């Protein structure tokens, strides 16, 4: 591979992956904060109010990092992928501009009010500002997914005489069928990150014996949301997403599943290592016929393997794609198991005292990040070798006048800067966790309670 091409791909992949660590929590937490605030407002409950405020503080730090790491994404379409932008900007410029005009302004205007305006606003207006931030962040997600959906499955365009793509139908483009299920799948994934995060911190407080009243709310809200969205993640959103890949990117499906030979009664590979040289899966554990069943709902359905497609149209990194996909699916399955078990214990009123389960919940916080990242890697590696499926190859999309040396230099610059940002983020989050959700220090509030009971 041309080294400049590789550098530009890594440049975007690294900055996008690091960036998306923050928005997934932003979008997930936004929903959970709105839920906490709604309960606080309806029950006039101070513990819920303090919980919402506490998660608002964490949200603020997380949001700031999402903003500063997000700006480079928009720039890179021009700086690193100028041929792609010149080719497709007439279509995807629509959603990218709409994201700025509809979502970013909404978020930025109400974030300040939500974070710092509680004293200036009535409780209802403050609740509305939280809703506005939630709507803004979810709207922003849709515009990005719609842009990606065009790259996965281009619709609503025509090819102009100069060879560039131009918009033919706004609604076909914005309501791309690919975007609908991908959006549902992605947003559900974001809520899973938020739910596991809030549950993990609640479990940590319970295990430490600190702020237990708040911690119970965290765990309860997190487990309920986590259970609902872990299930939605697989069915229907993941299932329908897979169906779309089967129909529209069959070669991607074959590569993801590691199906080298076309066959009826195709097996589903649970584990195993793809061996490209010998065109088979080594040391595999398979469920016969399962892949046929999942894709075409018939055990003996014929599924096309990689051999059915010309080699130049195969995704260029099959092992990475295969492993990303299997890590995503494996983790998604484990999430359901964890959350269903936790919900069962919650229902039997045992969860808050079951220390081993709290340990599991606490330690599972990083895994939704891994699953979401692996999911995006599956989507984007699976699209290869195309930048826009069937229309523009990745090797023809990057900025040819930006040398691999310059690209490497700025990539290393971003790696360094983002390492510092990551450390700062963890440091500030740790301080918030140490400070805790109560507006008054723990001991003082206990004395207060003691005084009241006497």
């Amino acid at each position, binding site marked *: 591979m041309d080294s400049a091409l590789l550098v530009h791909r890594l440049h975007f992949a690294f900055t996008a992956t690091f960036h998306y660590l923050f928005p997934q929590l932003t979008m997930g937490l936004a929903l959970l904060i709105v839920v906490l605030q709604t309960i606080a407002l309806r029950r006039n409950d101070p513990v819920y109010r303090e919980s919402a405020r506490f998660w608002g503080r964490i949200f603020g730090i997380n949001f700031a990092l999402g903003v500063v790491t997000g700006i480079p994404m928009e720039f890179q379409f*021009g700086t690193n992928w100028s041929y792609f932008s010149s080719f497709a*900007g007439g279509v995807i410029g629509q959603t*990218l501009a709409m994201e*700025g005009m509809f979502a*970013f302004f*909404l978020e930025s205007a109400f974030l300040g009010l939500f974070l710092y305006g509680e004293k200036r606003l009535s409780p209802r207006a403050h609740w509305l500002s939280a809703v506005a931030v939630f709507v803004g962040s979810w709207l922003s997600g849709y515009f990005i997914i719609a842009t990606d959906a065009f790259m996965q499955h281009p619709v609503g365009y025509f090819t102009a005489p100069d060879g*560039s793509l131009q918009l033919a139908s706004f609604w076909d483009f914005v309501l791309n069928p690919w975007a609908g299920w991908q959006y549902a799948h992605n947003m559900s994934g974001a809520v899973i990150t938020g739910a596991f995060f809030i549950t993990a911190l609640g479990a940590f407080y319970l295990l430490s014996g600190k702020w237990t009243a708040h911690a119970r709310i965290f765990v309860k809200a997190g487990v309920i949301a986590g259970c609902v969205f872990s299930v939605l993640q697989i069915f229907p959103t993941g299932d329908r997403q897979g169906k779309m890949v089967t129909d529209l990117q069959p070669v991607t499906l074959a590569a993801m599943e590691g199906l080298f030979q076309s066959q009826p009664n195709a097996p589903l590979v649970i584990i195993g290592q793809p061996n490209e040289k010998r065109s088979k899966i080594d040391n595999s554990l398979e469920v016969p016929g399962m892949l046929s069943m999942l894709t075409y709902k018939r055990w003996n359905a014929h599924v096309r393997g990689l051999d059915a497609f010309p080699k130049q149209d195969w995704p260029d990194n099959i092992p990475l794609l295969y492993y990303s996909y299997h890590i995503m699916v494996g983790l998604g399955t484990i999430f359901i198991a964890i959350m269903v078990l936790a919900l069962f214990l919650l229902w039997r009123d045992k969860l808050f005292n079951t220390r081993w389960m709290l340990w599991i919940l606490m330690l599972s916080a990083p895994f939704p990040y891994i699953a979401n990242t692996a999911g995006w890697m599956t989507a984007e590696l699976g699209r290869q070798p195309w930048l826009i499926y069937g229309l523009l190859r990745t090797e023809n999309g990057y900025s040819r006048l930006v040398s691999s040396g310059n690209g490497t230099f700025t990539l290393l*610059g971003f790696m360094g800067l983002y390492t510092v940002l990551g450390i700062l983020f963890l440091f500030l989050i740790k301080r918030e966790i140490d400070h805790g959700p109560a507006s008054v220090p723990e001991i003082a509030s206990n004395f207060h309670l003691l005084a009241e009971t006497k």
Partner: protein
Amino acid sequence: MASLWFWIVAAMIATYVVLDGFDLGAGAIYLVAAKTNDERRRVLRAIGPVWDGNEVWLLAAGGTLYFAFPRLYASSFSGFYLPLMIVLWLLILRGIGIEFRAHVETPVWQDFFDVIFSCSSILLAIFFGAALGNVVRGVPLDSAGYFFEPLWTDFKLGPETGILDWYTVLTGTVALVTLVAHGSYYVALKTDADLGRRARGFALLCWPLQFFLTFSTLVATYFIRPEIMANYAKHKIGILIPISVVASLGVMLWANPKGKEKLAFIASSLYITAMLLGAAFALYPVVLPARNAQYDLTIYNTAAGVHGLSVGLVWWLFAAVLVVAYFVFVYRMFRGKVPLGEGHY
């Protein structure tokens, strides 16, 4: 249709510079004008609720530019690769400088983020000015409409131009002085006592510099690109631009010592708008001049398809109304002098 989008994008960029300009300017004078921790918090509280929204104008203007003139976006962003990466890093540092300072209340932590915030604000002002200078001067576009500029060459306007040469350093300096003045008027408007007085003093100091630099830049621009006068000669309405520039400079000089901060701030906003729209007026219909004039990028060879541009107008106008509503609402919420009580920053 492409002409209309040219003016929409120009207006969005001008709005960005007027709005984010005052918080960049406030950042530039921050270390010197605000001496105590209280004063620094006051400056941060004056810009805290609005800086992020102001910066969104940059993203929205960028997104709209991408949408309306994709070939221009592709060419200029890849050609200005190195300075844009530096701008990105500065924007990141500045954002965390403002937002993270208040999280830890120890002097070393806060001094550290103060310096980050102020230095990145100063450098951003210079880079934005130099960027505009590059566009006016022209870049070495090839026949395919692309170029790549190193950060500097020999600082002359030869065939091998760099991002920084004597002309773009001059425009960068104009931008810095203009935004320092703009930020000073804003700080004077939002604060009182010593801090407000010092900000007013800064603005007073900036005025002669701003006056002198404005005219030397205009003269320099005329010498390196005489064709900028063509549109002014052809369309009489262009005379409004120099009138606005002179008038706004006059109002700033008059209003500031009299303590009419609001008027001075409005005049400064008018000055920025007139300077930027004046540059756009001079360039039109060229959007990125080439050193070799036959390769100029114009609105005609960079615009997106007509159908896309027409559809865009519908949602853009709808969104613009919402945006104006948000901004009026937020600025009204946080109007008046900054109190220093409980709360963030």
